């Protein structure tokens, strides 16, 4: 029977070693430490910065570099104008380029400050074939300030535009390509290249420190005014709270808050101008709870608007992963 011991031992080994693999508990990471970031928009607020809270990466470029902003998703079709430049747009009744030679009689429109797709100045352009006229803003010389354009094509891959300067009659056809991993694609009229810049991929930014146009509807008539503030990535959600102590905020305490993806939910009001002190003062008691594109929660509050040299346009904030 000595010879049998090997197969017997083999059988015993098979029986004992063959069990379902059990899960090993996952150990969740502890909350992150408090971090600080300063965004150098500059005293003239001329630059905008994309900020990724997870990596603290920033990407900056001039605020005024684009004129039209296009939805980048395959089924997207909405188009915005650059409020930071005080741009305006008017829909004409013309269906040919030559029929438009001046801005007389045009009704100018502006996007809603929230960037709500249903409230754009250009509106539902796929439903008609009329030309638009864009006023790029008062900072541009007259020769390059007004452009007429028609949105002539739309697909999952991109947009097709026909455009010309207001006085020109020679049409230029331009394709604005969509990129599925972005939220928006940008276009500038007087650039040789159709893309002035590309924003970071959707998962690589949470906040955009920029200038944008707010419309104070409590004024009569409503007052469009360019403000310096924060727009969020539309895939990010933010809750605003001013009742909790910043240090006591945890993952558990934010679950009952109401989150929104309205782009100007953080906006500009985390600071105000103190006329008596002749300086901007931040409101550190406003807590912003941010759920990023990866589902990570952050708490954030602003702590300053000035750099160490006393120059404005350097918003500084404290933030911490929950």
């Amino acid at each position, binding site marked *: 029977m000595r*010879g049998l011991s090997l197969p017997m031992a*083999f059988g015993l080994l098979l029986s004992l070693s063959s069990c379902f693999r059990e899960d090993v508990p*996952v150990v969740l990471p502890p909350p992150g430490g408090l971090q600080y970031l300063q965004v150098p928009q500059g005293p003239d607020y001329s630059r905008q910065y994309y900020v990724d809270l997870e990596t603290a990466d920033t990407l900056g470029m001039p605020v005024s570099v684009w004129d039209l902003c296009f939805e980048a998703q395959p089924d997207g079709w909405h188009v915005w104008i650059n409020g930071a430049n005080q741009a305006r747009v008017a829909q004409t009744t013309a269906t040919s380029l030559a029929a438009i030679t001046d801005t007389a009689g045009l009704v100018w429109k502006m996007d809603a400050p929230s960037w709500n797709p249903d409230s754009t100045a250009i509106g539902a352009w796929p439903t008609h074939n009329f030309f638009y006229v864009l006023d790029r803003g008062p900072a541009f010389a007259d020769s390059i300030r007004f452009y007429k354009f028609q949105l002539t094509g739309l697909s999952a891959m991109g947009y097709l535009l026909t455009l010309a300067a207001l006085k020109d009659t020679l049409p230029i056809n331009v394709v604005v390509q969509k990129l599925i991993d972005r939220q928006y694609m940008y276009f500038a009229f007087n650039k040789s290249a159709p893309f002035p810049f590309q924003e970071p991929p959707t998962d690589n930014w949470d906040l955009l420190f920029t200038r944008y146009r707010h419309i104070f509807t409590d004024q009569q008539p409503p007052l469009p005014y360019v403000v310096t503030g924060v727009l969020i990535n539309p895939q990010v959600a933010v809750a605003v709270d001013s009742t909790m102590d910043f240090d006591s905020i945890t993952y558990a305490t934010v679950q009952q808050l109401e989150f929104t993806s309205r782009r100007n939910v953080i906006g500009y009001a985390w600071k105000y101008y103190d006329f008596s002190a002749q300086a901007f003062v931040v409101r550190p008691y406003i807590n912003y709870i941010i759920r990023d594109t990866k589902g990570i929660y952050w708490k954030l509050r602003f702590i300053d608007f000035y750099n160490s040299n006393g120059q404005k346009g350097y918003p500084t904030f404290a933030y911490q992963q929950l």
Partner: protein
Amino acid sequence: MAWWAVSVEGLCAQSATLYVRSAQTDAPIVNALVVWHTDRQGMQQAWTAANGSIQFSLHQPVRFQVFHSGYQMHSDSLAPGQHRIIRLQPIAVDLGEVVVTGQHRLTLLAGSVLPVRVLNRDEIEQRQAQDLSDVVAYELWARMSRDEVLGSNASINGISGQNIKVLLNGLPVTGRENGHIDLGQITLNDVERIEIIEGPLSVLYGTDALGGVINIITQHPPDSGRSANLQLYTETVGTYNIAASGQGQFGGHAFLISGGRNFFSGFPDSDQQRHQLWKPELQYFGSVAYQPQLPNWTVGLRSGFFYEEIRNKGEPVITPYQAYAFDDFYYVRRLSQTAQVSRTFSGQRNWELQAGYNFYSRKKAAYRKDLVTLTQQEREGEAQLNTLGEWSVRSTLSGMLWQQQLSWQAGIDLNGQQATGDRLLGDRKQQSDLAVFGTLEYQATPSLSLRPGLRLAHNAYGVPLTPALNLRYDFSEHIHLRAGLARGFRAPSLKERYLNFYDSNHSIYGNPELKAEQSFSANMFWLFEYVMGAVQLNSEVAVAYNDISNQINLSLVNALEQEYTYINVGQYRTRTATVQTEAHWNSLRLQAGFMLQAISHSLNDTLATDGYVIAPEYRFQIMAGQPDRNLRVALLFRRTAPMPAFSTDAAGVVYEKIAPAYNLLDVTLSRSLWQQRLSLHAGINNILNVKDVPNLSSSTAIHSSQDAIPVAVGRYAFLGIKLNVIGP
């Protein structure tokens, strides 16, 4: 049909023993059929035990014949008190194989009018097949497909598993998912051989027998002696199987008990990968067979169980605040109880009764598992429990007339199913089928046999008559023809008739008015046998045509509400031509086969293949051995053909896809030690390391992407050990 037997003689008898061995290896031949005749009891039959022996109680000398697969039939005599050793000569053509499927009585394979193929225990062990899917994977007539959760499905000559009847000792195996039996749930621990008939056999076996019949014949308890064995098997991809069986004769009562455990750890298997493409699987199985020794009667009882657990673990979702995954567990239980009684009367009349009850249940449990606390919570609305109970009673009476020129068989077949399930209308449904059938086998001339058959049924799905006609013609001693024309049918399942499923996206309803799928088939098999010196050759050329109409397909009937139901709308046609050749030269055996399939499939008026799609397949096998060293090596190659099929995308749109061709190559080395008590099998399977093939959809823009279809886990090594613990 009897599948085991007893022999009892009177009190004044003397014992005699016959030892059956291989003339080539001198190894004992287990389960060889021995047939003899006595004046008192007429023809008797029994099988050799684990040591190749069989004991007789004799009053007088008898003539006997010994049959076993792969050996020449041996005829001799035995006197009371005599103890003899006989050695069987191996042959190229399995003329000595005895088959039962579709036969009036135990019949030599060579004499069968029906085209029966046999996979015997030797081949099962040589391939180290753990379940039925392993056995048929390399057969030219079969094509395997595997779903990670629903298991293995075989098609025969291009006809899918839902149109193939799987029998266990002649009674239907129940429990189909998605229309087919999971062949991975048919374990082979106590299986003696597998008989396959290509083409319809509904005239005898009723529903589902359109494309073919796979009849699994289990081992019978021994007529004498006691033995036990242990089988171990492992693969480098995480398979660990253990099985054992014991059998013996205890004072006129013979038992066979077998059982085992199969485990697959899933693949790929690593600490980092929770979700596995090939799901972890655990199986327990066992059976008990009992055979009393009764004068003039053959009685057999068998009880079997099977349990399977498959774990489909989801990809973990890990955020800074939680970690979880969605897991699905599937539990399958099978119970089968069968009783078989037969008796031979004077005039070579034989009466047989088979009765069985099969129970099948499949439970799906769905959980959200917290990977931090390792607790799990049931997911509401995701759990499912389906059960199916099926009883069958089948009785036949057969006999011979006109100096054995005419053989006849008449039978009655009753079958009932009762299903329960969360998604069945009314939770519980049943259907039944009552049929009478008869076949004649008329030997018109010594060369020509004709076999007409007819089945008359009463059921709810409209198949009152099923005819068949087969013939066998021997052109010469070396050239034989088998041909057949037959109708077959598949009854709509209870699910197809009474499903009641809806969710937010769509709803699917059964159709109680469904009729059976019906088929017409024609086939011809030519067998050529040659002997050229030491080389023995046999070749088979076969052609077959199958036309399945009234095929049951899921169809969109209300686009606005996204309502689907089953309707008889499809048509499926196949034409196949097969050439297979086998050569024996001493201990070298070569097999080569080529099959050309042409398939035409239409789901409805608008969705169909573009005419016939041609699919060539081929297979090679080389087996060589050194009998004096009990060593054998086998090399097996198979190329599967591209196969057209229809699939449904996430939006419910049906589209055509083509599963591309792929190649399989295995090598196995076998050796016996310790006077055949220990058998070792080792080898490498899937040497070409095939894991998946691209899923080539039809040319529509929506489905032009190529998704891989997993077909195998890739290359792996295996080791199998079989040890006779008790016995010689």
